């Protein structure tokens, strides 16, 4: 295996600097003792404690988590059932259903948000938590389907029959055999929906009411008003959380990979 050229290494470093410099700047100034985001005056943890006391932020965080959980769970249920139904469809119907799934994904978020807003307004439903949840479920379902459907495709079709051959009825076979096979897809679909929901700004912006702000919306109003480095503190915390999650996932994945490799080695030596 050829070693990496120095020019390649340099290029990687430059791009990584580009990717992380703004984030590092944000994090550094979250400890700044003055309100300035540019001039360093001293070290403090004030902004972090302010953050925890900021009612608006804690409220919107709560909103966001509840919203994400509820909409993801519902979307996962609907989406998994949808994948089950779609996998049984004939080619024409299946293509149609899948294309339907793509519509929310390929539409610009602003168009989705605006169209949903029109729907709610025309239906006379006041914008608030309910409409938020409905909107989030709507854009989450496709992600679930796109994660679960391939699992159906990859699954050995004989598994279901094998279970029946060994004595299970239809429903038992489904839960004992099919569900474990598609479970990785269900989980990844759920997690994906959760992530998109937590992070969503544009669609929420158009479908929420004044009482039910989500965290991204609160962040938006904070950046508009340019108040305090609490934003920086928030960014740092979010970054650390995301970093931890990714590291854990990576370690878990590499552990799984190591176990698989060890298993294969053992298998070969038999």
């Amino acid at each position: 295996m050829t070693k990496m050229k120095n020019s390649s290494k340099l290029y990687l470093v430059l791009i990584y600097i580009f990717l992380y410099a703004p984030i590092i700047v944000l994090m550094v100034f979250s400890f700044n003792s003055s309100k300035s985001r540019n001039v360093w005056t001293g070290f403090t943890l004030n902004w972090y404690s302010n953050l925890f006391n900021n009612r608006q932020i804690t409220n919107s965080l709560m909103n966001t988590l509840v919203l994400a959980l509820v909409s993801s769970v519902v979307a996962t249920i609907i989406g998994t059932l949808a994948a089950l139904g779609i996998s049984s469809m004939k080619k024409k119907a299946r293509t149609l259903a899948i294309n339907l799934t793509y519509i929310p994904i390929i539409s610009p978020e602003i168009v989705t948000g605006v169209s949903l807003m029109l729907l709610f307004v025309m239906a006379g439903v006041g914008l608030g938590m309910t409409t938020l949840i409905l909107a989030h479920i709507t854009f989450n379902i496709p992600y679930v389907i796109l994660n679960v459907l391939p699992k159906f495709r990859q699954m050995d079709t004989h598994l279901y029959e094998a279970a029946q051959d060994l004595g299970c009825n239809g429903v038992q076979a489904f839960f004992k055999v099919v569900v474990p096979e598609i479970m990785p897809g269900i989980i990844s679909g759920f997690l994906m929906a959760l992530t998109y929901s937590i992070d969503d700004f544009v669609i929420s912006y158009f479908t929420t009411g004044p009482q039910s702000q989500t965290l991204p919306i609160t962040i938006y109003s904070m950046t508009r008003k340019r108040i305090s480095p609490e934003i920086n503190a928030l960014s740092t915390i979010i970054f650390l959380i995301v970093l931890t999650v990714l590291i854990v996932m990576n370690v878990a994945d590499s552990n799984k990979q190591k176990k698989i490799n060890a298993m294969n080695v053992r298998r070969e030596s038999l």
Partner: protein
Amino acid sequence: MKSKLPAVPYLLWMGVFTIVPFLLVIFFAFTDSSGRFTLDNLSGITSYIPVFGRSLWLALVATVICLVLAYPFAYIISRIPSHRQSIFYMLAILPMWMNYLLRTYAWMTILENNGLLNRFLGLFGIGPLSLINTQGAVVLGMVYDFIPFMILPLYSTMVKIDNSVVEAAQDLGASTWSVLTRVILPLSVPGITTGITMVFVPSVSTFIISRMLGGGSWLMIGDLIEMQFLGNAYNPNLGSAISLVLMVIVLIIMSITNLFDDEEVGEMIK
């Protein structure tokens, strides 16, 4: 298990929350405030052609920059020995998981008149340059926010190009440039088209970036729509018309990129 019934809740949901809203947008686009059919909205758009032009142009520039920067980056990472690849890949994707409002906000800190960059240049007696509230800043914001969406699909396709194919090309006499143009490029087309779509669509429809880094002086399609629905100039009919045109633009771009490639859009989500 061969039942299509489970997909019914999904179909109903999509019908109500995706199809109907779109029909509403179309309806509003072609009617006036009293519900009568009119083409005024569409003709009203003609006065905004500069805005459309600017959005398309800036999005195009941002997409091209993303492609040029991300391509070598994704390639270099895909050639790293596989057991060490995941860390590099993870680090490249990590910023994507941070709220893009915060990431865009970070650039405000850096680009402001008394921001970090200008203060750095000031050390050499240069400036202060007017960096923020320019079109350049908007493009920078787009590139920074969306480059992970170019890296991801590029990397996914490139990692599938086996190293032995590259070696075979070299073995047969291909210089580095020939390997790139005759082997890597043709095989990475699916990643390129997906990446282009995933960067161009959010870029052309954003309103956050133009507001935060463009200072509101460089209106884009997204700004227009937002203003018509939630802003002072409340005109949902005009807003719907603009949204419709935006959708058409997006669909045209996607059909163009699809000409080059048959892969499903859903591949990249995995």
